[in-house]
């Protein structure tokens, strides 16, 4: 009986770690702590040049404030739990993945190609199957935007296999 009770208690305490309020608070506190550590690596200004406070003081104060408020939010959530969020669908992860594809392709191959690939991935996996529409959204529209920015705003896009062809 005791074992069952203990097991239930363990499950309850374990489940705390999987609650969104715990995970979100932990992520904020960990990132803030890392950033707080970095503030100690900022250069220190000699007193004669120092304007009021050291350059690191203000970010330090902000990060400590964020950590304190996050802890407060977490303790409030123990009394008033956050609502349970639905599991994210595959379409979300595919869209997120398309961002990675865009970054990789735009960095190593071509900016325009990156936009075209992302557009076709998103449009296709969000349910578009008509080829004409896929071409419109991934080639024709980005081309119009590209030419508009290039001619009206005089923008020079980063070099790449397709952009270089355009610039000759």
């Amino acid at each position, binding site marked *: 009986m005791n074992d069952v009770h203990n097991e239930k208690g363990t499950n309850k305490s374990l489940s705390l770690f999987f609650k969104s309020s715990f995970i979100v608070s932990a992520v904020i506190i960990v990132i803030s702590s890392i950033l707080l550590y970095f503030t100690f690596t900022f250069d220190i200004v000699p007193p004669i040049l120092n304007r009021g406070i050291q350059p690191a003081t203000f970010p330090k104060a902000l990060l400590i404030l*964020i950590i304190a408020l996050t802890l407060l939010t977490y303790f409030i959530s123990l009394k008033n739990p956050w609502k349970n969020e639905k599991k994210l669908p595959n379409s979300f992860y*595919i869209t997120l993945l398309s*961002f990675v594809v865009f970054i990789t392709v735009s960095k190593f191959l071509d900016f325009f190609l990156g936009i075209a690939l992302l*557009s076709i991935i998103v449009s296709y996996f*969000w349910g578009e199957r008509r080829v004409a529409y896929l071409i419109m959204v991934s080639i024709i529209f980005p081309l119009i935007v590209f030419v508009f920015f290039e001619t009206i705003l005089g923008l020079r896009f980063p070099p790449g296999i397709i952009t270089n062809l355009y610039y000759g």
Partner: protein
Amino acid sequence: MENLGLIFAPLFSYKLLIVLFFGTIFGLILGVLPGLGPTTGGALILPFTMTLDPLSAIVLLTAIYCAGTYGGAITAILINTPGTPAAAATCLDGYPLAQKGEAGRALGMATVSSVIGGIASVVVLIFFAPLLANLAYEFGQPEYFALAIFGLTMLASIGEGSPIKNLIAGAFGILISTVGKDFMTSIDRFTFGINELTEGIGFIPVVVGLFAISEMLTQSTLINQIFNRVALKAVKLPSIDDYKKTWKTIIRSSGIGSFIGVLPAEGGTVASLIGYAEAKRWSKKPEDFGKGSIEGIAGAEAANNAATGGAMVPTLALGIPGSATTAVILTGLIIHGVRPGPDLFREQPEFLYGIFGSMLIANILFFVLGFFGAKIFARITLVPNKLLWPMIFAVSVCGTYSLNQSIIDVWLMLLFGVIGFFMRRYGFSVVPVIIGLILGELVEGTLRQSLVIFDGNWLMFLQRPIALTFFVLSLIALSFPLIKRKKKNDKV
């Protein structure tokens, strides 16, 4: 007051009229499309404004602001999805009325009350902004610091969601503003050896990321959602009976919206909720609310449009944005070399009154366009997300890249998009981040300069009456949610 005649100047400039016309149409389209709205739209169009002169650029942004705020009502009434957060309260009665076959009447009331609210708020702007600007002559660094703190605490306490989460978001926004070379000592902060970060993180990557890209991720989770769209035959002007029922509500909500708008916080959304709640409280038939009450539509719509002019008051008079969209407008002013504040009122009255006049005209224009074109604008909601969002992505990427021609800006935009998505998912509003980013330099700069003036003595802040007043108001603002919660608990 001698400058009042300048309000009519835009009427005599064909260039400004063209800009106003296209700004209003663009604003309506943005307002109609759920997930976009004037803030994201304004941020997306900022790079394009570089081809315009400063007045035309700001007129374009303000026209988008006014028309976009109204446009949200069209979607709220016809598909029960607010085009903008400020139109959320409009859904409550707009959609039930549309379901009863009175979509035209609901839209007619939304249009008329939006125009009245919008015009009333511009009148408040015209008279109140110069007064506030005059008061700002009394402000030194400590007063501006206290004012910025007041703005952030107001945003936390009366904004959407949890006040503590709003404060965390605001502090995060200020933290972003510290990235780059320290403007007083030129020491690198959070640059991690990346040269592009020494100039700091720009406003556009953050705002486009937090609004447009995070919304794209949100839409990716809703691709199977089906909207029940109510057919619209034509927009009808409200009947005499409708006017009799709603005129007091419209006046009350216009006042509420203008007042809430002036407070440095997310005006439109809060204003519409309060306007709606007050309309219900004063109504002879509160039981009709939520079932298609015409007063409910009038209360919400007059209030959210009245917040537009109100939010421009602190933006122009003090350089403190009154809402997320006015933060975009403030950025527009800054990148065009216009510094808001009392000097702007003294040195460039024609510029300011041109903006006031343009806002008046924009309200009249969206009345005409909304009245005769609502049916066409409603069709825009038929553009499927699977085509719309890849196109918005292309514009977002090119727009963000265009300002500094920096690929790092594009990556930052994506990063903030992901951050924004998770923030919204877990109940953190992204608006305080934007306001924090805008106010960050002001908060830190004025704090450090004040400490130089006070020789490091923090207590000297308390010897400045205006600063002290703002600090006391900040404390009241922070304790307001606690009092509200205690009252609620007591009632339970």
